[in-house]
């Protein structure tokens, strides 16, 4: 599986959205991406890509798209 596929899979299973929704998906744009969903997302990203995300990046992880840029800092290219 490519990184993009893994990345998409995390969002699809964690937030139960469709592939079409991914590009515009933002924190709190769907009811499941709330505080609890957010922590689930971070845990899944850390586990899948074997990284540890900083506090500042956890609270800045505001969308599907902007998340890709954040992961770059951890040498994960999506």
């Amino acid at each position: 599986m490519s990184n993009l596929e893994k990345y998409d899979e995390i969002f699809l299973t964690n937030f139960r959205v469709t592939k079409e929704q991914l590009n515009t998906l933002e924190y709190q744009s769907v009811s499941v991406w709330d505080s609890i969903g957010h922590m689930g997302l971070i845990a899944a990203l850390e586990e899948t890509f074997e990284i540890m995300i900083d506090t500042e990046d956890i609270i800045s992880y505001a969308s599907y798209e902007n998340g890709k840029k954040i992961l770059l800092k951890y040498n994960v290219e999506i």
Partner: protein
Amino acid sequence: MFLDLDKKKSSSIAAVDSTGMQISYGELNGFANEFYSAINKRTLIFILSENTIGSLAGYVASLSVKVVPLLLSSKTDKEVLDKLINLYRPEYLWLPERLSGDFNYDFSFRKFDYVLLKTGMEAFQLNDNLSLLLTTSGSTGSPKLVRHSYSNVEENARNVAAFFELSPVERAIAILPMQYTMGLSVITSHLFAGSAVLLVNGTLTDKSFWSFLKEHRATSFTGVPYSFEVLSKLRFTGMDLPDLKLLTQGGGKLSNKLFLEFAEYAHRTGRKFIATYGQTEGTARMAFLPADMALAKPGSIGKAIPNGELSLINENGEEIVETEASGEMVYRGPNVTLGYALTGEDLIKGDENNGVLFTGDIAKRDAEGYYYIIGRLSRFLKLYGFRISLDETEQIVKSVFDIDCICTGNDEMMKIYITDRNKKDQIHNYVVDKTGLFHKAIEIEIIDEIPKNASGKTIYSNLSLQ
């Protein structure tokens, strides 16, 4: 006056909210008069709450002028809300202005982004001591309400202010929802002490929360176990927060690992970590573990709060006299609420508990008299700090989907057992919607048949996760 609010310094800030609005004690008292001139009688009001100045002012004014509020989340499902309106017939609603379009009631007045609407319904008779109504379980729409007296609310505020040693210099983060007993306790205890309340209408993972906390130099934070899980994940103990001196916890049992993480952090950095125990039926708090005992007694809820008393009883309801023992925990104190209401006619009822509360929690008492919660008698879960009744969820699923089912679980997740594979997704979505729980906290499992005994009663012990 309510919480002696008229005796606080009138220019002091009583509350600030995350929209940037703020209110002084003087303005809060002035608003109570304005509120009363619009209503002008003792009656029932529903407040659709959120952690904002408008919601807070409506609550404080109601208690000050003896109008009786039921606090409900502003996110309450419209269907659930209509059911409660029909059942309890509030004469007024106080709600965020942006929601007023959903209701066909007469407009009375607006203030702080909230509006007062008059329903035209005639309220039921209200008992003279009745001060406040809160729901018992999150958002499943149960009509069961807890009836509080005026002294319940005052005593809670006084006691909590005393054992947290609150003073007017405090600036407390109030992020737990104000319609939730412990969220409300944070607010009332700090107002009683003349402190400032920092109202957060958001969550710990909002970037804006952290800038708000720093900008207003918060001195205390109160959370449920899930909040501490998030704080731990956000590596809170490594943050630079020089003003934050007090962490308090309630709303269920913290894991030992997290308990120690925060107790050690507090000890190491000269802060206080105070674990508490409470229920809506006991006006939020009934026991606390003093900060200096946190490392010596990790996982303990401590001892009864000032003016309260804890004891244990055995299966026959007899008090256990031995110090080291376990049994159902019983609480006695001035914050034990009056009883429940199931319909509007119950609002006239007086005190049915007489200061004694059978908590339904099984506790262990150690040789020094410290209590530890080790189990629960009744069938409910505490998920993310909210109490979810298993029997109630079972009833909802049975009636909506016309099938038999079983709900069990632990404080991490709820499991619903059904026999009809085709209804799995439908039921999952429905329960997620109705309870507002995270979808991964609810699991639906298909079994061949629902285990029953000879008399047709469900046998829960046959299923895992009990």
